């Protein structure tokens, strides 16, 4: 049962039952709400895809701001041997008292060069770097002001001009699937008729299954939610990958001013569900699943990274300890045993071993917990 439903049922009962049954922790959700509003939220979004697929326009449409002012776009000749850069834009936006520190990580140059082998390495490196920084902060002594720069979600833009996934798409998603929540999108969907969109989505879903790419899965909704919610959730899940259209311009349609694209043959409305899946994406990304994305990043991707890190450290330390031990054993008749340095290192090793054992126990506990959760 979620906190909300518990809260609801409790409220009903407290009306007709007297104080002796009322403890007061029904207000916990309120307290959580208050604290979180005071603390503010942060969210890091990574957008990746070739140039010209509408990434910046979509981000602007999603957050209704103009994040990229006076961008310098490179010419084709400059892009022939382009390397992938990582650029960060951080903005503070506020809505009804709730503050959000939004960081958009852009990857200009991805897929633009003539030779694109391993062009995602710098992106992978960036994500790992954020994890490493957080790991160090978390293991440090002063943990008051840890800045969480970990990437919570990666929007990957697939061009609609092809027949499905291309080799560069598959390599990118496979390289990042364990490190970040990958959400693939069909960009510039206004060049596809509804029939073509359906075919392309099916194709993409098939290929994602076929190549074993682990994209972000929506969590199943609770069984006691109402039917309408479940229906919406089902629809949401069945329309992945989302086919989106973005627009910076506002046009007038039937007396209303909406975000859209003006063509000689009609007007595409960005927020019209019949035209594209932009609303679904916004709902998923911001309104319902933002927290879940953050949680999955913290609980799954970051923990994986941390476990790996610790394992490598353990291996290094063990290897070093072993080497030291071996040196001591293998040296022939120890005529002049070097007592003092060895004793010191031995103590250190013992301490480290203790720590490692403790950490491994914690890991096991966490893994068990995750197991139970999955079940």
């Amino acid at each position: 049962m979620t906190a909300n439903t518990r809260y609801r049922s409790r409220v009903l009962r407290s009306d007709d039952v007297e104080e002796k049954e009322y403890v007061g922790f029904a207000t916990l959700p309120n307290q959580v709400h208050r604290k979180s509003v005071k603390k503010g939220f942060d969210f890091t979004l990574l957008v990746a895809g070739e140039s010209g697929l509408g990434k910046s326009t979509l981000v602007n449409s999603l957050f209704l701001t103009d994040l990229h002012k006076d961008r310098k776009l490179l010419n084709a000749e400059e892009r022939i041997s382009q390397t992938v850069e990582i650029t960060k834009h951080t903005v503070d936006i506020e809505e009804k008292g709730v503050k959000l520190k939004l960081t958009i990580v852009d990857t200009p140059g991805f897929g633009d060069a003539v030779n694109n082998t391993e062009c995602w390495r710098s992106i992978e490196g960036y994500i790992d770097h954020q994890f490493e920084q957080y790991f160090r902060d978390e293991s440090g002594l002063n943990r008051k002001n840890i800045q969480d720069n970990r990437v919570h979600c990666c929007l990957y833009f697939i061009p609609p001009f092809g027949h499905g996934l291309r080799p560069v798409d598959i390599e990118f998603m496979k390289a990042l699937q364990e490190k970040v929540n990958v959400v693939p999108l069909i960009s510039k969907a206004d060049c596809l008729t509804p029939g073509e969109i359906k075919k392309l989505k099916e194709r993409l879903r098939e290929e994602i299954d076929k190549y074993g790419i682990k994209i972000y899965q929506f969590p199943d909704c609770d069984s006691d939610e109402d039917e309408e919610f479940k229906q919406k959730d089902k629809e949401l899940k069945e329309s992945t990958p989302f086919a989106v259209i973005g627009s910076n311009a506002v046009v007038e349609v039937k007396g209303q001013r909406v975000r859209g694209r003006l063509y000689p043959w009609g007007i595409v409305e960005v927020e019209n569900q019949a035209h594209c899946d932009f609303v679904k994406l916004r709902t998923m990304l911001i309104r319902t699943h933002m927290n879940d994305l953050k949680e999955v990043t913290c609980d799954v991707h970051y923990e994986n990274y941390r476990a790996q890190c610790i394992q490598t450290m353990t291996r290094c330390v063990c290897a070093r300890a072993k080497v030291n031990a071996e040196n001591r054993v293998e040296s022939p008749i120890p005529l002049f045993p070097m007592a003092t340095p060895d004793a010191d290192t031995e103590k250190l090793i013992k301490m480290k071993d203790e720590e490692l054992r403790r950490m491994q126990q914690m890991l096991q506990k966490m893994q068990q917990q995750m197991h139970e959760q999955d079940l």
Partner: protein
Amino acid sequence: MCRHSLLVSTVFDLALVTRARAGVDVQRHATQEKSVRPLSLSGHVGFDGLPHQLVNKSTCQGFCFNILCIGETGIGKSTLMNTLFNTNFESCESSHFEPKVKLSAKTYDLQEGNVRLKLTIVNTVGFGDQMNKQQSYQHIVDYIDTQFESYLQEELKIKRSLHNYHDSRIHACLYFIAPSGHSLKSLDLVTMKKLDSKVNIIPVIAKADTISKSELQKFKLKIMSELVSNGVQIYQFPTDDETVSSINSAMNGILPFAVVGSTEEVKIGNKMVKARQYPWGVVQVENESHCDFVKLREMLIGVNMEDLREQTHTQHYELYRRCKLEEMGFKDTDPESKPVSLQETYEFKRQEFQGELQRREEEMRQSFVQRVKEKEMELKEKERELQSRFEQLKRLHQEEKGKLEEKRQSLEDEVNVFSNKKAAAELLQGQTFNSSNSNLKKDKDRKNSGFM
């Protein structure tokens, strides 16, 4: 009348001269120009019907046109071809996972009115899909060169049939640009630079129904400026012929064409038109305010098809031919800037080649002789070795035989000694046991025979 015939004969002379070598040609042409006077006719002769004769001839023969479509997988090349020629050229969807760029050519016979067209469409399969696209343009360049080469071979033959030859040289190359809205892709730039001197490039913006009008203007300007700043020579519609110069120059300003292709039909009003149906409207392919498809069709097929063929032949093919022949060593003028005839060069080359052949033959013969000698020596060595071994074995054999003889001899001696001893013993025995039963004797005999 004789003056008229003189004029006519000079005209025909000029026609024959077009096949001659360049340097000499220019000089002769110039001298003839000086001696040609324009004459006015006093009546109707009738050679104004010459173009008609030409047209009739070519219509009977049929026309041939080859288009190369370059673009990423799924960008709409096949659909556009279907829309342009109003037929369904059967083609299957290609996959994104081709390891290399391939070219697939298909030839179709079309007819409109009484004009027959042999159309060849060459598609690039897998273009732009690989991770490393540095070699993508090479296959296309090789294909174009191969077509030029086969034409050149046919031209250089002794017994040639150029009028029957199926010309497979690419006359027009439609380069499909993805509608990103910003600029060309790096791959586009690299490829077009490599192809601009080999084929007439006509860039088109594919799937143009994803770009709004304002963005389209900016996009086109950006593309053209990038092409110009990188020195890429795309095909310019000819403006030297007054009848079409105005429309051609206007079209030159609209390049690259933003096209939309569709083979599906939608009912608009009371007609069925080729269009794409969206929830927000219908994009009509043949509506000039929606896209430039009609302009492309007009320019490519309706007005300039013949010019494209001519350009391919006179400009691109000639360039190829010149480069190829220069590579082979043919020159028009030798180091002293005297015109060198093809014959002489050819003879010279031939002699060189023969000399080369002879030299090589000599070399090979010598090396062959050398090898034979070596082999012979080896074999002799081996023979000697074998011989010595044989003798050694023989000796051994003799020794053995001798030893065996000795042994046999000694054995025989022993046998003799033994039989003597036996005889002596028997005698003794016989004497002492004369009265004993014959059994004992027999026993002894048996024993002795067993012993023997």
